[in-house]
């Protein structure tokens, strides 16, 4: 792609607040005129990124260029960008007209020109005849429109929108989504939109950038992100999905939920553990025995407006979510199949917990800032070691008297027959746990690992 198609280019951008790394080596470009959405859960760093583009925050490292020009050190008031703030931030001492005229007056635009542009922009946001109104008398949706008008009247090169619809009710939000998309089309301005609402992102965007924990997880068109999520976080965050452990038997053949399936992926190697994502609408019911790949018992069936949402237990004991236009009663035996093209296979980010640790004494090893007992045969105190612990060998306890250390449940993924938990330990590191017990997000848990489940290997010294 030609460089000049990129209006904003971000390279190796990092930012920390105190000890906490909020953004970590962000690389991203924005194409001229596109609607780009930064999507992620709260606290993922998306708003920080937007504020750095706007100039309210300075990056610790990295470069942001606008139209090929490095904008480092340029204060917000000199950047040809405008922001629509989450809480609108309309000036309460000015009426609608003066709010919108604020930027134009600062630039000494002639009166009649201001007048003309305000009339035009008010028409665009469907707020004509509201010029003289006090902003505090407007409803949330109306204030939102004025906030958008106030920004776009300045004809910015890029419009930044920080969760602009978050404060509106559902109906209003849906209407505004359509209008925003329409405005984007009419104006031809580049939009950078921040939201935590995946549905909003899918509806509005040309490009979605999924961010989690300060890192870009995936960037692509809504269809790419939805159909081909690159990891289980994206798959879980965008839309509904069944995320399952699987094994790539060989090219174009994958095994999961106790059955072998044809798929379209290759290049993973043989007998390679993988994550498999199946969207609930991609599991089909059939009457034909030859078509059916596995059977299941319907557990529950709920009407969702357009489709039915069913949970089934498969013949090998996995739970799957299925969406279909036809309803199957709870207790019914059903035959199911999945098309090869609907199976999304993802490389596993990790297959077990690994930490760098050190042997502190005979039978004692330290990692996660904690001493654990285990066999240290073949190692001497002071040796640096690589510690491995299988996901399902980590015990979570609801009391901490028998626990080696403690942590908080950060993220929960259901994998059909067990939960895959991400736990943030006291030392700030992560430990991944496979369990059948039900925990909630943010639960405070004790962590225990039995001595026999801790495996040590010699750490390769690099010089």
């Amino acid at each position: 792609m030609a460089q000049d198609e990129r209006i904003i280019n971000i390279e190796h951008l990092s930012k920390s607040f105190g000890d906490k790394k909020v953004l970590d080596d962000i690389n991203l470009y924005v194409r001229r005129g596109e609607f780009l959405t930064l999507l992620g859960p709260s606290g993922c760093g998306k708003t920080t990124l937007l504020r750095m583009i706007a100039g309210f925050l300075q990056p610790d490292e990295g470069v942001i260029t606008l139209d090929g020009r490095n904008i480092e050190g340029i204060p917000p008031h000199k950047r040809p960008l405008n922001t629509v703030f989450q809480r609108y931030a309309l000036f309460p001492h000015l009426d609608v007209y003066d709010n919108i005229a604020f930027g134009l007056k600062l630039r000494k635009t002639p009166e009649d020109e201001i007048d003309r542009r305000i009339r035009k922009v008010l028409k665009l946001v469907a707020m004509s005849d509201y010029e003289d109104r006090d902003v505090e008398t407007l409803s949330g949706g109306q204030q939102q429109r004025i906030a958008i008008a106030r920004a776009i009247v300045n004809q910015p090169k890029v419009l930044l929108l920080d969760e602009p619809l978050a404060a509106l009710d559902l109906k209003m939000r849906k209407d505004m989504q359509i209008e925003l998309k329409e405005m984007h089309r009419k104006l031809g301005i580049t939009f950078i939109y921040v939201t935590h609402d995946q549905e909003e992102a899918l509806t509005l965007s040309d490009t979605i950038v999924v961010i989690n924990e300060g890192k870009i997880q995936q960037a692509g068109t809504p269809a790419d992100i939805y159909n081909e999520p690159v990891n289980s976080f994206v798959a879980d965050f965008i839309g509904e999905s069944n995320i399952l452990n699987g094994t790539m038997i060989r090219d174009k053949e994958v095994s999961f939920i106790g059955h072998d399936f044809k798929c379209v992926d290759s290049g993973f190697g043989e007998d390679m553990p993988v994550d498999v994502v199946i969207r609930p609408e991609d599991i089909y019911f059939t009457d034909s025995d030859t078509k059916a790949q596995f059977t299941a018992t319907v557990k529950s069936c709920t009407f969702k407006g357009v489709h039915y949402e069913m949970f089934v237990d498969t013949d090998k004991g996995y739970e799957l979510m299925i969406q279909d236009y036809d309803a199957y009663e709870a207790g019914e035996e059903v035959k199911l199949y999945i098309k090869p093209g609907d199976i999304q296979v993802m490389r596993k980010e990790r297959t077990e917990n690994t930490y760098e640790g050190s042997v502190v004494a005979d039978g004692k090893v330290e990692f996660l800032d904690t001493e654990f007992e285990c066999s240290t045969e073949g190692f001497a105190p002071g040796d640096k070691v690589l510690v491995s612990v299988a996901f399902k060998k980590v015990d979570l306890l609801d009391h901490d008297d028998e626990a080696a250390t403690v942590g908080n449940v950060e993220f929960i993924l259901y994998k059909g027959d067990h939960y895959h938990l991400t736990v943030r330990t006291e030392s700030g590191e992560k430990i991944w746990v496979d369990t059948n017990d039900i925990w909630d997000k943010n639960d405070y848990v004790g962590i225990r690992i039995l001595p026999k489940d801790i495996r040590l290997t010699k750490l390769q010294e690099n010089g």
Partner: protein
Amino acid sequence: MGKRSNWALPYFIFLVLFVVLPLLLIVVYALQDGSGHFTLANIAKFFSDGDSLGTFALSIEVAIENTLLCILIGYPAAYILADKSLNRSAVTVVLFILPMWVNALMRTLATAELFTMAGIQLGKGTLLFGMCYDYLPFMIYPIYNVLDKMDKSYAEAAQDLGATPGEVFRKITLPLSMPGVMSGVMMVFMPTVSTFAISEFLTNNKIKLFGTIIQENINNSMWNYGAALSLIMLVIIGITTVLQGDNKQEAMGGAV
């Protein structure tokens, strides 16, 4: 009468005894001569007495000067206190408010003592210094309060729309903090008009303010004229309050 409205009764009695009755007494005394007959002579005396009028004008002048001085010193102080990047500690705020905890009379006496020790001639300068010292916290606090609670996104939005830091202050921060300034003005201007202790101690009675002549009249048992002067002051303060209320309805909204 409902049970709930009974709770208001003690306050009602208090208001009648300590606010309404004294006010009525002032009005009654102001409109009587020494032997208890109705007269407007006391009021007329004020408007025909050059000394009283002069003192009154001086009082207003001093009060205006003091109020302006308090705004000039107090606004930047409040601004700095409310700016998290300049002041991270709540202690500094308390330190600024701390003088309010000490009796004003004692502070004034101490200030007078300091001037005497330093050999500084008592006069209008020392008077203004003392007044400003006494009333500054009453100006700082309401302004600080408004600035501290102000949504930072207003300033950011203005910046985003192209305003330089100076323009952000002139067009956004200052107008939005006016309710605080108004509260401060009310709390500084009116008490300064009627003060007498400060002028007595800090000018050795060289400068007489309106409060001083009221006090002198009352002390010399000229109750009726004293009451008339009080009434005139009340009316004038009342008028300015009402005018201010019209200008800025939310003036009290920003108060402490």
